[in-house]
């Protein structure tokens, strides 16, 4: 009973309720919401964000942030497009795009760990830098003539199901990240670093190396998201995914990850991804404009920073009351 009650007031449990409510709202507000095609639409729409949210979760838990992910996505997208349009084979174009993402992550990691600069500032800088590079690479044009095998991967589904291929990639990555964060040595070290960097260092953890690794991972995954995005829209443009970093950070924080590091779970983030996906989808179905949608995301971001903190405080108060009641 006691365990049940403490389960009920976890942030994840709250997210499940929120998810059910948003499904309920969607179903009653729009006749199309529960259709199979709509499931496909709302899933494939969020997958790039979902994939990038995985390394972002690890980075924020370790007490840092990477705001350059959407720009990295844009940069790798145009590199991919440029190489393909110049006649290079697709596998090579994808390979180079992924490499560019890793290099971009490397630069972030280097600036944060070797020069000891705050990641918030570093990645705001590279947010502008990588996006600028994307414009330098491709100018104002777009590459849109991709081979059909590539675009089919972008908007096709697995067999006769309504699951997009990107959904499969996300599922595999999610499992890998859950194993790393919640069951591996590295995951334990991440929580230690996020909670107490000094104690982690005094325990023999190479804090800089772990952080460098995280930023490289984040860059590589952002590049992967860039490949998926390019395939889905069959378009490589320098302004691809502008502003996505905000949504990525929003889902991670809404998922209950503490902005100051050290706390959070991928279960919460996974739930938050679908809540945000449904929110965007419902607003779209109701023909609500993009401006209002970004307003909603902004509000959600603030609420998600506030929410878990308030929830924890309430939990503390409840525990304290119980202790007082128990002692009297």
């Amino acid at each position: 009973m006691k365990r049940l009650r403490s389960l009920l007031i976890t942030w994840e449990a709250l997210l499940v309720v929120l998810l059910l409510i948003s499904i309920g709202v969607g179903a009653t507000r729009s006749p199309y919401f529960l259709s199979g095609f709509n499931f496909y639409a709302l899933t494939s729409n969020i997958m790039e964000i979902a994939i990038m949210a995985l390394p972002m979760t690890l980075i924020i838990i370790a007490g840092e942030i990477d705001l350059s992910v959407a720009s990295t996505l844009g940069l790798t997208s145009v590199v991919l497009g440029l190489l393909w349009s110049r006649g290079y084979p697709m596998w090579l174009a994808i390979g180079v795009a992924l490499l560019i993402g890793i290099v971009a992550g490397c630069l972030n990691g280097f600036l944060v760990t070797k020069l000891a600069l705050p990641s918030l500032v570093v990645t705001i800088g590279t947010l502008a830098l990588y996006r600028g590079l994307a414009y330098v690479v491709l100018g104002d044009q777009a590459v849109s003539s991709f081979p059909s095998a590539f675009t089919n991967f972008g908007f096709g589904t697995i067999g006769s199901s309504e699951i997009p291929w990107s959904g499969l990639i996300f599922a595999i990555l999610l499992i890998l990240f859950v194993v790393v964060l919640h069951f591996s040595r590295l995951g334990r070290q991440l929580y230690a670093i996020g909670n107490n960097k000094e104690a982690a260092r005094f325990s023999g953890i190479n804090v800089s190396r772990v952080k460098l690794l995280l930023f490289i991972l984040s860059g590589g995954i952002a590049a992967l998201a860039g490949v998926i995005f390019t395939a889905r829209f069959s378009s490589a443009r320098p302004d691809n995914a502008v502003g996505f970093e905000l949504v990525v950070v929003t889902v991670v924080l809404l998922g209950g990850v503490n902005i100051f590091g050290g706390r959070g779970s991928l279960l919460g983030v996974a739930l938050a991804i679908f809540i945000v996906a449904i929110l965007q989808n419902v607003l779209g179905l109701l023909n609500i404009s993009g401006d209002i949608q970004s307003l909603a995301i902004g509000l959600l971001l603030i609420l998600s920073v506030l929410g878990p903190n308030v929830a924890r405080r309430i939990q503390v108060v409840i525990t304290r009351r119980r202790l007082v009641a128990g002692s009297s």
Partner: protein
Amino acid sequence: MAKPADPIIELRGIAKQFGGVQALRGVDIRLFPGEVQALVGENGAGKSTLVKILAGIHKPDAGVMKMGGELVELRSPTQAQALGIAVVYQEPMLFPDLNIAENIFMGRHPRDRFGRVNWKRMYREVDQLLESLDVALSSRTPVQGLSVAEQQMVEIAKALSLQARVLVLDEPTAALSSHEVEELFAIVKQLRERGVAILFVSHRLEEVFRIADRVTVFRDGTHIITAPISEINTEEMIKHMVGRELSRLFPKGEAEIGEVALEVRHLTRAGVFADVNFQLRRGEILGFAGLVGAGRTEVARVLFGIDRAEGGEIWLKGKKVRIRSPQEAMDYGIAYVPEDRHLQGLVMNFSIATNITLPILQKVSRLGLVDPRKEQKIAAEHSRQLSIRSTGVEQLVNALSGGNQQKVVLSKWLATNPSVLILDEPTRGIDVGAKAEVHRIISDLAARGLAIILISSELPEVLAMADQVLVLHEGRVTGAFARSEATQERVMFAATGQDR
């Protein structure tokens, strides 16, 4: 010197408790106009607490304070300032980006009749003030770039501009060169002539004899003696500072002394410590004595690979080694229990088990994955060995008492199976019972053949536990004693930089 009958400030029965620690147990102190009174005592004697009470930072739990015969109560630093009490700390607290005049008049800039800041008047007044103190600085000099000594002068000038009648100097000379100390003393003497009452807190006894009119000794939060400086000598003063019983401490048991485990030759880190030499054998406890800031922790940090040494050699089991990271130190069998449990020792919202296994995750993992059963087993074993009192190894460490937290840190490092164990203030902030238990554990570890470095600011602890004692003073070894030679007086002499 003729002393007027009435003190400027009088404190009686001042007591202050922090958590379970009684920092001050009802002390009396009186400051007269035109006197320099020195306040001396060991680490933890209660000097800083008294300074902070005078500064209005801490409120005493008991006792009264009178100024000019009237009862006063200090509720805030602002109020202390308004009553004419000024405190100059070892590290001055100025705004580095502002100039001297702006710092001195911070929050009370002179205004003209339109409410604008009267810069001209401000600079003129500050220049006059600096001139009267014989300080060759312009009021427009930015504070950034001033030496610590010059910053202290600015603090003192600020105190004067506030019409301070009581000036507290908290370890003002610790960061000064000998020439700068002279300049500071010249100003102190000048202030004394102006009738300011000065409380001079210092570790350096020779300075106390040079500048003070009277001296007050604190020990363990109690007032021991206040005497005119002419009626006391260094030996007596030190005796008053350390005179404590040794019996209630747990002495080191018998241990077989084995081969040399660690040898350090001419170890130097520029500006921090220089030319440190010692040999440590298995089963032996080497005590590092000295005052706070003497460089003991800094030596330990180098041995554990957190900081680098610029010169000197470290030999482990007869092999010369270079230690570049904590990981490497651990690989060499060195473990370091840091001085700050909360900041460096523990992840407070991790469980006992996850804290204990943090340095040995490799040992409890397979293919990179943590094996929870193995982790629990190792943690439970160590937890039992040191009898950590908890509801189980899954309990979060922030719910444990200080003593039990310290035992978790110890377990964490014992789990690495070290051959050299460095303990930095292992009994700080834990109660007497837990202290005795930690002492027993240290003694057992030595008996098991560990080579142990014990850094402690509690002299009796070092003397009771250590086979040899190394004394540091301002980064230099000023004394090395075998157990039989080490007495409180000798160690204290070396620790305060006295030559004998």
